């Protein structure tokens, strides 16, 4: 993974000093809240329902054990002993004190971490495929380019006061594990006919009030011209994005209003003037960054491991966990291991300081010291030898991290909702907990199969409900919490937005409604057909009927 050189270190340390000064000026009165607010947002500090919230960046979801231990220490020393991993591969702390945030940032800077631009109307954390560098289907590790973009976007003087927030995601393969089609800019790596690597560029996707699957603005962008093209897109947006209405200020509104082709033409014109200029990184610089993402020292191992097979045969719980939490690795004898942060009855995406340390220990001992955060609020140990999988699993179980439910109905994505968030209309976490509890039986979950359930507490859709196979949106109906259900969304390369199934359900009724949907699917599916595929085949009619007929 990327290691800071003196320039990167200087930047984060200077940024800490800068924010310390800004906080001091705020507390002593030289800065009022109106002028301070965008500054604190650009350092990841929100004011939430109960307290401040600090969102720490985990660039493209990659960190090592030293960094994870520091996150644990921050949870323990400055917060209430836990953190929350988010749908943008970041981590959030719910209870920091403003006056202590500069100290937290200083501790983060010591381990090459920061909270720069995790909020505010600027370019946010660049996210990438959480299996990067381990999955077999990559053209190239997308994190190389995510790091290039991260540096270019950091304290960019022209793009720090955009019309609205700006989110970029990169996937290294056709298989989209980064949800690029619903980002402001989505980049998919591919090769052109000459075999040269580059990007398909999607601009203007998004969720929230006006969910849109973004159009492809450029079918092929040569790799070396990435930054000049991004600068062109951002400049067009900065100049032409709406500033009169914050609900209409994202780039997706601009792209939809002028049309994808017209937008592409505007970008192309600006880009022609920018390309070949100072934005192009020297080849040696790209190579320097790429070297940090070179494959780690894998061992030469056989494809099968007899110990691993034996443990799977002997230990039913282990075998069942392997079915959902292991993914094939491109390197023979290795596996990609997912750690579910969705124990039944727990808060989706939360980890205690002790759990963070357990993961750090396992990564350091067994995992070539690498950890990932997925946009589905889980963690990943991307490089585990098959022969070590059982030991890692035992360590996870001991730490309360042994949930065997990746991709199953209890692996719910849930925003913090009205329990924590200022913007929410309804609670989401207890709904997630009650649904998970209803489906706690693992045999039943396996029978149901892959089912991505996503809950948002308001229309801002931080829970990505639009792209859930089942999506749940919390709404306020006459002062009570109600939940609107959508069906058939998908965040992958087959991206689709969920369709509203009918009137919303009360807090008391929504879990039954979800169970009804699941049972309807089970009754109508063809052999081996996932929920999403069954819905696409059948349409909403049988589900509507099951939910609403006779009511």
């Amino acid at each position, binding site marked *: 993974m990327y290691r800071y050189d003196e320039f990167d270190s200087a930047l984060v340390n200077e940024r800490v000093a800068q924010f310390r000064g800004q906080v001091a000026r705020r507390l002593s009165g030289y800065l009022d809240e109106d002028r301070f607010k965008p500054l604190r947002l650009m350092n990841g500090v929100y*004011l939430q*329902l109960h307290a401040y919230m600090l969102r720490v960046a985990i660039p493209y979801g990659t960190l090592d054990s030293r960094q994870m231990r520091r996150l644990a220490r921050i949870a323990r020393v400055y917060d*209430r002993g836990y953190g929350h991993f988010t749908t943008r591969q970041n981590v959030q702390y719910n209870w920091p004190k*403003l006056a202590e945030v500069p100290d937290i940032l200083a501790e983060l800077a010591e381990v090459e971490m920061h909270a720069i631009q995790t909020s505010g109307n600027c370019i946010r954390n660049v996210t990438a495929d959480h299996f990067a560098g381990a999955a077999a289907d990559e053209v190239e590790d997308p994190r190389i380019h995510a790091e290039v973009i991260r540096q270019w976007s950091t304290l960019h003087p022209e793009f720090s006061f955009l019309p609205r927030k700006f989110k970029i995601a990169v996937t290294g393969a056709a298989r989209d594990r980064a949800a690029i089609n619903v980002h402001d800019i989505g980049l998919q790596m591919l090769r052109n006919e000459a075999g040269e690597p580059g990007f398909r560029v999607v601009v203007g996707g998004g969720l929230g009030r006006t969910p849109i699957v973004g159009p492809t603005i450029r079918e092929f962008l040569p790799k070396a011209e990435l930054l000049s093209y991004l600068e062109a897109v951002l400049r067009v947006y900065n100049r032409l994005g709406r500033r009169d209405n914050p609900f209409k200020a994202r780039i997706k509104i601009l792209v939809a209003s002028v049309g994808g082709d017209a937008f592409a033409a505007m970008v192309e014109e600006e880009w022609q003037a920018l390309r070949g200029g100072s934005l192009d990184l020297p080849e040696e610089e790209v190579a320097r960054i790429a070297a940090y993402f070179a494959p780690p020292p894998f061992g030469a191992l056989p494809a099968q491991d007899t110990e691993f097979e034996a443990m799977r045969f002997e230990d039913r719980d282990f075998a069942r966990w392997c079915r959902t939490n292991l993914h094939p690795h491109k390197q023979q004898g290795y596996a990609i291991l997912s750690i579910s942060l969705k124990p039944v009855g727990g*808060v989706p995406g939360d980890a205690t300081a002790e759990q963070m340390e357990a993961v750090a220990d396992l990564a350091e001992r067994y995992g070539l010291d690498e950890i990932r955060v997925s946009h589905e609020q889980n963690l990943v140990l991307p490089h585990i030898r098959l022969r070590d999988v059982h030991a890692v699993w035992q360590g996870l179980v001991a730490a309360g991290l042994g949930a065997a439910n990746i991709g199953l109905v209890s692996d719910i994505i849930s925003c913090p909702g009205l*329990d924590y968030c200022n913007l929410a209309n309804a609670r989401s976490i207890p709904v997630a907990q009650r649904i998970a509890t209803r489906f706690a039986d693992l045999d039943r979950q396996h029978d149901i199969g892959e089912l991505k359930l996503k809950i948002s507490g308001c229309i801002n859709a931080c829970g990505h409900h639009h792209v859930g196979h089942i999506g749940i949106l919390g709404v306020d109906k006459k002062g009570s919490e109600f939940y609107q259900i959508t069906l058939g969304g998908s965040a992958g390369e087959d991206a689709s937005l969920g369709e509203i199934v009918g009137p919303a359900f009360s807090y008391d009724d929504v879990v039954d409604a979800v169970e009804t949907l699941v049972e309807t699917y089970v009754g109508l599916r063809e052999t081996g057909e996932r929920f999403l595929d069954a819905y696409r085949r059948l349409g909403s009619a049988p589900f509507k009927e099951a939910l609403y007929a006779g009511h």
Partner: protein
Amino acid sequence: MTARIVTANGLRDGEVLYLARDGRWSRDLAEAEPAESAEAEAALMAIAEGAMRCRTVVEAYAMAVAVEDGTPRPLSQRERIRAAGPTVGTDIAIERGR
């Protein structure tokens, strides 16, 4: 009877605060001073604005309450949760586990 009270967050630590008598800020909603008229509410907000200028609190606003037996109670789910704390949470689980 419904009335309005003024609430804010502490500038330094972000905690939820309610404007009580004499311009004092309390963590306890029960101590909030209810305003039964627009004038009374404006007077409370003026105190709050002073507190914002003096950098005690941020983002003060007035909210609706029901007053029962002289004690204000929040009317919205949002303010109920804001007053009582999260209904769920890993920190709550940690606390209970202790």
